[in-house]
């Protein structure tokens, strides 16, 4: 598979109240964004255990994104704060383990930001395409 043909797989762990709704809005508003994203709804970005990210990356995802409410807007008051603190450490962990930290993103997308969701996915897909397949994904490499 040549690089230009590479279609990255993105796992998006989205907060129920903001980003998931935002993604919904992007859909109902018929906004265009790449089909590379596979969304997974959690109640809050704070629910995302970094192990999920690591697990996804090691099981074939080329990129993982966590989507949460803007800081201060968390439906659960503070979930996104703890999510953010974890994400920073996770990035470092990934980097020191030899995984490009750009494969992981934490984005604040509110329920009304369908356009932002589409935009972020577009950007993320483009970036991942440039990065190429996840080297941990042996299957993809083999294919």
């Amino acid at each position, binding site marked *: 598979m040549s690089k230009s043909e590479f279609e990255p797989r993105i796992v998006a762990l989205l907060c129920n109240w903001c980003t998931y709704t935002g993604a919904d809005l992007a859909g109902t508003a018929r906004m265009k964004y790449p089909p590379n994203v596979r969304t997974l709804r959690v109640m809050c970005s704070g629910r995302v255990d*970094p*192990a999920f990210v*690591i*697990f996804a990356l*090691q*099981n074939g995802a080329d990129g993982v994104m966590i989507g949460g409410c803007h*800081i201060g807007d968390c439906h659960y008051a*503070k979930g996104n*704060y*703890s999510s*953010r*603190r*974890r*994400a*920073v*450490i*996770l*990035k*470092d*962990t990934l*980097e*020191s*383990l*030899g*995984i*490009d930290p750009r494969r992981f*993103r*934490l984005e604040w997308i509110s329920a009304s930001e369908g356009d932002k969701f589409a935009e972020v996915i577009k950007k993320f897909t483009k970036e991942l395409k440039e990065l190429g397949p996840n*080297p*941990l994904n042996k299957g993809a490499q083999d294919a």
Partner: protein
Amino acid sequence: MLNKIRDYCRDLLESKKVEGILAVYTENGNYFPYFFTKKEELNNLCIDKKYLLLNSVKPLRENLVFLLQSKMPGKRIGILARGCDERALFELSKRGQVNLDNIETIGYSCNEEQAKICTCPTPYPTVNLKFGEKVEGVSEHKRWKEFSQLDIEGKRKFWEKEFSKCIKCFGCRNACPICFCKECLMEDRKFVKGGELPVEIPSFHFVQRYHHAAQCISCGECEIACPMDIPLRLISFVLLNRVKKLYDYTPGMNPKQECPIYTIKEERNEEALDELL
């Protein structure tokens, strides 16, 4: 120093200030943790052998201090502590694993040689130093130079090679004082498949390192325990630096300071974090 410590411990025991003192016992070249309650036994007390007193006792997965404390509730227990012992004590007390109130810490510092063996950045108790002098620690991992020059791909390759040595003995986990969970999540088959070598994907190591990001007390036990010499603490050094930089937090330094990753009680201005994402 040893004699001074023995005298001190004798005084403590004689004055009944403590019920007993947890320290390392040596006899005939063997050494093991021991709860000294009689002053005569103090002749067997040793300080030159490293034995982290606070890692979990298998298979109870409880540390010695906790066990002692639950045996004799309300009684004061002495512990002869190196820097790493004290840090472990503090971290465990934050996590409810020991009760600091009833512990008399008799701290003593390690010498430079010992620090080098453990790659210890702070080879002395920061709060309860009673014996010995603070010596300069080792703040860089012995393989840091080699590792830091690698690019992302190089790092990946580096780890691929290192982890391929792993024999899934869980020694690193067992030796770790911070690993006190009753059941380890990482034993799950999805992270560590049984019966196969080498490790196909090193999720276990990833997650363990991440879990200890803001809790690792730099005792070096994991690397000492690892039979395959995997430089596990390379990652910990990176993460600890990050935590120190972001929150001015070093695990085990202050029993009052809460772990920034595990609390959201205080809302700080963390807009700067966004830039790191």
